[in-house]
Each structure stands twice: as C-alpha cells, then as structure tokens.
C-alpha cells in the first residue's frame, strides 16, 4: 500500500513537473541545437534591427551624431565600427570625438583609438592605448595645417608618418575641438540598418541562459534545470518500482 502511494505521489509530481517545464524543454532543445550550429546557420552574421528589442537591451536611443569633414560624415555605430558616410571602415574603440582631413588622408579620433584613413576610407594605420596613444582623447582640432588631439595632458600634435604624438608647443588660445553634428536623416536611417550588433546568436544565447531578463531570468532557468533533474529522478524511480513489481509477479 505504501509503495503504491509513493509511486502515485511520484507520478503526480512527475506529471506536474512535466507540464510545467514542457515549453522550457522544447525551447531549450531547439535553441540549444541552433546554438551548437550557429556558425553554419549564419546566426552570428545575421543581425536584428528591431528597435524595441535593441531598446530592451539598453541601447541608448540617442540621436546619432557624427563629424562632418567637407561633404562627408564620420559616425560610429553601436557595434563600435566607424562609418564614413555609408561605408564601414574599421572598429574604433571608444566614443567618436572628432575627425578631420590631413592632406589627402582622414584622421578619425575615438576616445581610445586613432585611425588614419585614405581619402577612399581605407584604413592605413590605427593607434591604440597599447601602442602609446595617450587615452582617453577628448577632441580633435586643426591648427596651422596640423591635426591636434585633446589628450589628458593637453593638446598634442599628430605626426601622421610616424603615428606619434608630441605636445603642442604653441598657444592653445583659440583652439577648440570640432563639435559634433547631426548627419542627414537619410544617412542616419541607412546607418541604423547597416550597424548590426545584435545577432540572432546573441539573442538565442541570452534567451537560452535567461540572461535576457536579468538575474531573475537566470534563476528561472536554474529552477527549470532543477525540475528537469527532478523529472529524470522521478521517472527512473517509477521505472524501478514498476520493474521490481513485475519481477515479483513473475
């Protein structure tokens, strides 16, 4: 009698647990298989442009700013990539703080990285903190034909051949960093679509782990995992009892 009530108890909670996590199991199975084959499925190369989802991720819906150099615009996307008009140039670490022409080249300054580009937007060389850039940079200006960068120690002159910076020996009076502006609306819309950072792989990873919903989501996934374990144990227990009972009858 006691064994029957124990099996009955197991069966009831096995059923309840199974119902409770059925959807989780299905979702975890599908997302797990997809993540295992993410590169083959191209999940890391396809990006989601849904505004509401990017807002949910905390992407600041700030107006895209940039720096105009002649008729061309430098902007930096949420993915950290520098754009010259619609053209993706290269990753640029830190907030975009200025851009200017230097002879037949462009100089683009982000807070933690300096990029030297050809007139066609091809990367010539970059200089980061590890390579001696006095970061964080706060702005960029031009004076007497030279490109000046606002470093923590003050204005510095850029030598584009040596990619080195030296203290600006002249008077800093009247030197002001270039101010950012707002690119044309058509360009902003195009960049919004081109600047992908939220991939399907990222979304699936965050859903699979529960991280999309913060710490509570993680705990919910943990609880589902414990329920999976309970289902396995209760299922095996019921099989054992049934197997023994059949053995005794025989």
């Amino acid at each position: 009698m006691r064994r029957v009530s124990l099996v009955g108890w197991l069966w009831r909670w096995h059923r309840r647990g199974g119902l409770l996590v059925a959807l989780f199991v299905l979702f975890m199975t599908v997302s797990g298989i997809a993540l295992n084959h993410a590169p083959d499925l191209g999940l890391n190369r396809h990006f989601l442009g849904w505004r509401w989802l990017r807002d949910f991720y905390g992407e600041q819906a700030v107006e895209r700013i940039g720096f105009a150099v002649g008729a061309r615009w430098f902007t930096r996307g949420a993915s950290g990539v520098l754009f010259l008009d619609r053209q993706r140039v290269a990753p640029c670490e830190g907030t975009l703080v200025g851009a200017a022409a230097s002879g037949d080249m462009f100089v683009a300054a982000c807070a933690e990285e300096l990029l030297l580009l050809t007139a066609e937007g091809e990367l010539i060389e970059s200089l980061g903190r590890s390579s001696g850039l006095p970061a964080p940079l706060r702005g960029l200006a031009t004076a007497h034909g030279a490109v000046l960068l606002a470093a923590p120690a003050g204005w510095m002159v850029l030598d584009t051949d040596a990619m080195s910076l030296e203290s600006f020996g002249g008077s800093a009076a009247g030197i002001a960093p270039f101010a950012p502006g707002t690119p044309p609306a058509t360009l902003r819309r195009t960049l919004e679509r081109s600047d992908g950072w939220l991939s399907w792989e990222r979304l699936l990873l965050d859903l699979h782990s529960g991280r999309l919903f913060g710490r509570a989501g993680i705990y919910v996934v943990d609880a589902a995992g414990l329920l999976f374990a309970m289902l396995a144990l209760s299922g095996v227990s019921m099989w054992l009892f049934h197997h023994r009972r059949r053995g005794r009858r025989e």
Partner: protein
Amino acid sequence: MRALARGASWCRRAAVLLALCVSGLAAAEEYLGREQFLAEAFAGAQPEVKTLWLTSALKAQAEHALGLAPMALRVRYWRVGERTAWILEEIGKEQPITLGVVIEQHRIERVRVMAFRESRGWEIRHDFFTAQYRGLALERDGALSREVDGITGATLSVRAVNRAARLALWFDARTESGLAAR
C-alpha cells in the same frame, strides 16, 4: 487538476522582473604597454622603427598564403639586427586582442598578450600558453611549424593568437632582411 491550478497560481505570483539586460562590453585589461614590450623585446637597446606597406598585391598574397587579409595598409615594426617586434590586433570573439610578437631569424622568440577586451578567454595571457610559440616558424602552407595546445573555453582567443603569430612571421619574411634571406 487542483495541483495544476495551484502550480499555475504560483507561477502567476512568482515575481519575474523584466530588468533591462545591457549587453555591455567587458572592460579592457591592459597588461603591457608598447614601451615596456619593446624594452623586453630588445633588452633595452633602442630599436629602429620601420614600416611595411601592404599593397593590394601583398594583401592578396597574404590571403592566399595564410587565409588572412590584413586590414591596415601600413604595419609598423621595430628592428635591431635580425630581431623584429610586431604589435598586432586580432579579433577574438567580438573584441580585438592586442598582441606583441618578437621574431628572430624568422622564428618566434616570444608572444605577449598586451591588452585583452573579451569577457572570457583571458587565460591566453599566461606564460604556460604563450611559451608554446617559442621557436615556431611558418611552413610553406602558411601553418605554424608545430601545433599549439589550446585552452578549453578560450578557443577563439587561441585562434586569434595563432593568426597574429602567423601574420607576424609572414610580415617578417617580407621585410628587407626577410627578402634578402630568401
């Protein structure tokens, strides 16, 4: 049925807070600056700064030989005699890793992780891993002369270091002394 209703009621009462999950980047860790790396590489001797220009033809050769297309047009390196030092950046999973590679007589003398920006895989910066690159050369097929043991959980970071090592060796072979040796 009663149990199911109780379970559903519990789920409804459970407080699942929909907090914003900001997928922010891990803060960069800088382990070694340029001057420190060069001082180590050349034992205090003052190296000569040189540049290697990567024409379209050279980039195509690199892609053919290594399966890698360098992004920049100009690569800076430092030289004392037969020893060259390169500072390269390679993407791990999503962020660049700054790596210093020292080459002597077309073999790697040392590899150092100068800056790491990913949230995982930082184990590559330890000597137990980077010491494997000592003495490695570039084979004709563009592979390293010996396989490097990876680190579980740092696969993409390890691949980035391998790419930087191969690129540095390939660049070194195309400097003036490299071409003269060939």
